[in-house]
């Protein structure tokens, strides 16, 4: 019998990370798409950095920053009761940092491609920026949101390096599928590794295929008729 826990944790992690990332990425992407600040390229670079840094580097610095033997980690631990190393919460934080660019980039592109007159039309109707964002802008960049969600979700499922560094491989808590497969391979249980891999492959293949089918292809815009 295989242990379903790592698969459950993986999908739980991917789900929570994706939801939180969506909430974090929308304001960042909105700002990046609209700012004329000269700091924009720098901000863009920072957002892209997690893409470039090996997950081990991210993991390493998170380990240093969050370890309770450290100032910040200690503060978190004592004041908020948050232990971010070797805990599920820590994996969520790591995954958010790790997948940030995958959520921000497509949404930023989506905002940038929207005609500014949509926003203006809403403003002259007396609608606040927030109302405009929620009721007008976001519903009209759905394909970009879907792209961001898929990328972030998928990327989190595939995460390995960060988890290896800060997760500590605790079953039921931080042993995600990628680590479990690694473990099984290391203990020479190729059968179990195979099973995990196939299940992971199957589920994610199904999810992706569904999205592509529903979406009628990633990049197809809804066609006008005029």
């Amino acid at each position, binding site marked *: 019998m295989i242990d379903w826990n790592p698969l459950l944790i993986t999908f739980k992690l991917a789900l929570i990370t994706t939801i939180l990332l969506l909430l974090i990425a929308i304001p960042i992407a909105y700002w990046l798409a609209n700012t004329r600040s000269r700091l924009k390229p720098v901000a863009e670079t920072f957002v892209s950095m997690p893409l470039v840094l090996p997950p081990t580097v991210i993991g390493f610095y998170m380990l240093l920053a969050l370890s309770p033997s450290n100032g910040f980690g200690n503060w978190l631990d004592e004041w908020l009761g948050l232990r971010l190393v070797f805990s599920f919460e820590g994996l969520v934080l790591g995954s958010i940092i790790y997948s940030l660019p995958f959520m921000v980039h497509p949404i930023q592109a989506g905002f940038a491609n929207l*005609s500014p*007159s*949509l926003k*203006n*039309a*809403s*403003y*002259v*109707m*007396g*609608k*606040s920026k927030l109302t405009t964002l929620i*009721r*007008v802008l976001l*519903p*009209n960049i*759905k394909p970009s949101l879907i792209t961001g969600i898929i990328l972030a979700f998928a990327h989190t499922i595939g995460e390995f390096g960060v988890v290896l560094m800060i997760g500590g491989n605790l079953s039921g808590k931080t042993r995600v599928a990628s680590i479990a497969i690694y473990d099984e391979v290391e203990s020479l249980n190729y059968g179990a590794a195979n099973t995990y891999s196939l299940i992971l492959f199957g589920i994610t293949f199904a999810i992706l295929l569904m999205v592509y089918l529903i979406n009628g292809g990633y990049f197809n815009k*809804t*066609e*006008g*008729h*005029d």
Partner: protein
Amino acid sequence: MIDISLQKLLKSPGGRMNLNVQVKLEEGKLITVYGKSGAGKSTLLMLLAGLMDPEKGYVKVGDEIWTDTDKKIMLPPQKRKIGFVFQEYALFPNMTVRENLLFAQAKGQPGTIVDQLVEIIDLGQLQNRKPNTLSGGQKQRVALARALVRKPRLLLMDEPLSALDHEMRVKLQTYILKAHREFNLTTLLISHDVSEIIRLSDFMIELDQGLIIRQGDPVGMFTNDRVNAKFQFTGEIMSMVKQDFIVIVTVLIGRNLVKVIANDQEAAVLEIGDKVLIASKAFNPIIHKIS
């Protein structure tokens, strides 16, 4: 009275251009802004709507101050009572026609206004369709209706009809006039089309390089001294057929082809494509309505 004094530095293809507009507009009128591409027409409307900030100047609408750079007043677009019809319509693709109109409602505004507009602008059939499934003319009507939902004090329209064919255009001009009168609006319209301007507007401003170069009654501005008791037209030569000592010249005037007989001397200076003036000495026109 709408009292406007606005300055803004623009980047134009040929370097910088200073938009500098000083004008007082009478309320309740339909005013056209006319001018070459890049003259600053759209910018003027954006400044009035508060969608762009001027470097210097003010906009006073009746006793309200919308913009005043000296007093650091810059009312956000949300608080100006304006309707804006954008050139590309800017309908919200995620909402149906009716939802577009409902979205425009102010909080607490009675829902009857939407039904009323649907009635006036003839949108009954289209209510539940998404903008993407509408034709250009239909989109335009929805955009107009949507701009009227909040009963704006000032209606701004940026070349609303330029993409439409002649027939649709004439139809929508009627809707615009109807709305302008029914809702007692002050309307500013950008247009390039002479017949549209003459048909719709009470007053016209011509912009060039950011400055008002002419303003006044549109009929007067387009016709100069050409309109008088005499019948005279400008047109373009389409063909010239020589017959013995005369030449039959076909001239296109509007959508009408007219044949005029010219003698050899007259014809000698003419060429196909020339713009010509045709005038009559004695003329007794009759007017017939076309069904």
